[in-house]
């Protein structure tokens, strides 16, 4: 057996009801007066798969709903509780306490938006008379269309799509960022992704954020698809907080 580490929370954090760890293992806290490490005992040899990844994330999310939790990266185990105390709690107590204090009362909410391709294409044709005329010209005179022209049109379409993505990215961030303490963007992955941003939001203000996301979804339904994930522990804000880029506690 090894001790799988999920994250660090305060010693007084309530244990979420009926929550299980990887492979349905019982969750335990290895704690001292101030801090607690969320752990479960897992067979040493068992390699982790998709379910284990999800279990790790969902344990942390369940805690994040009510308590401040600093997530551990997935895949870290220690031989026993004593090493958990030494390696995690005693190694950098000040650092951990600073993180827990800084993120107190805050959750991460992640919003990802994608354009519906057809709607986005219609929109760029509406916005770019040149593109529209080029398209009509090519439709009217298909015999003049060479692969090079096709490429050129495609490139112009791609470029117009990027402009549209940028406009919509700014629109979404302008609406949501004011409701958050900090914003961190993940790298875009193509595939018509407009934005993928993590927002650090006060737990008490999550309802307003929920409403803002709901309103954005309703307003932009025809053109984009929104994914809304959370509440999560402050994954995207750990490094900025450790490095001092973010600071308020």
């Amino acid at each position, binding site marked *: 057996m090894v001790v799988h580490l999920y994250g660090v929370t305060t010693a007084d954090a309530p244990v979420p009801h009926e929550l299980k760890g990887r492979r349905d293992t019982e969750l335990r806290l290895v704690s001292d007066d101030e801090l607690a490490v969320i752990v479960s005992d897992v067979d040493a040899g068992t390699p982790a798969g*998709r379910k284990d990844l999800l279990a790790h994330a969902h344990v942390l999310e369940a805690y994040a709903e009510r308590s401040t939790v600093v997530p551990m990266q997935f895949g870290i185990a220690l031989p026993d509780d004593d090493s958990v105390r030494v390696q995690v709690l005693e190694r950098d107590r000040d650092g951990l306490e600073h993180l827990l204090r800084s993120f107190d009362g805050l959750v991460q909410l992640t919003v990802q938006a994608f354009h519906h391709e057809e709607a986005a294409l219609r929109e760029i044709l509406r916005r770019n008379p040149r593109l529209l005329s080029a398209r009509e010209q090519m439709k009217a005179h298909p015999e003049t269309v060479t692969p090079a022209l096709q490429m050129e049109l495609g490139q112009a379409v791609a470029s117009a799509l990027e402009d549209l993505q940028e406009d919509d990215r700014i629109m979404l961030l302008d609406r949501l960022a004011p409701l958050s303490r900090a914003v961190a963007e993940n790298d875009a992955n193509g595939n018509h992704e407009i934005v993928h941003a993590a927002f650090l939001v006060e737990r008490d203000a999550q309802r307003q954020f929920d409403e803002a996301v709901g309103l954005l979804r309703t307003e932009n339904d025809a053109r984009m698809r929104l994914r809304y994930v959370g509440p999560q522990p402050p994954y995207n804000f750990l490094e900025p907080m450790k490095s001092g880029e973010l600071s308020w506690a």
Partner: protein
Amino acid sequence: MTVTQNRAPNRYLDRPAPSSLADVINTILDKGLVIDIYIRVSLVGIELLTIDARIVIASVDTYLRFAEAVGRLNLTETQTHGIPELMEDVTNSGAKGKTSGALEGAKDKLTDMLSGDDDEKDEQSSSKQRSGDGKQQSRQQSKES
């Protein structure tokens, strides 16, 4: 007197969902606290997902696909205005083409229309174009080998 829910924005209330596997793999997996010495839990069966189609927008295939997609669009349903005035635009400026061989004219015009964008935009997109070229090269190489 009846008590009613009077918070109008409620109908837009959206609740966030738990992380999906893609969320974990793409955005969470590399984040979180690490310690110095530990037992690494080995991860299996995830590799396939991490190379999940990360389609880069600047690739030859994508350009050609976009060109087809934009050509296929049926604009008559929604575009009630716009086309007539734009077509007028095309015919006005394409007048030269009409007199000197319609086909050549159309071709010139098209190239003009597409490449006649402002210069700074071209600058901006040059790096993307390079990466597109790179793609093409690597594709060709893999064909040869």
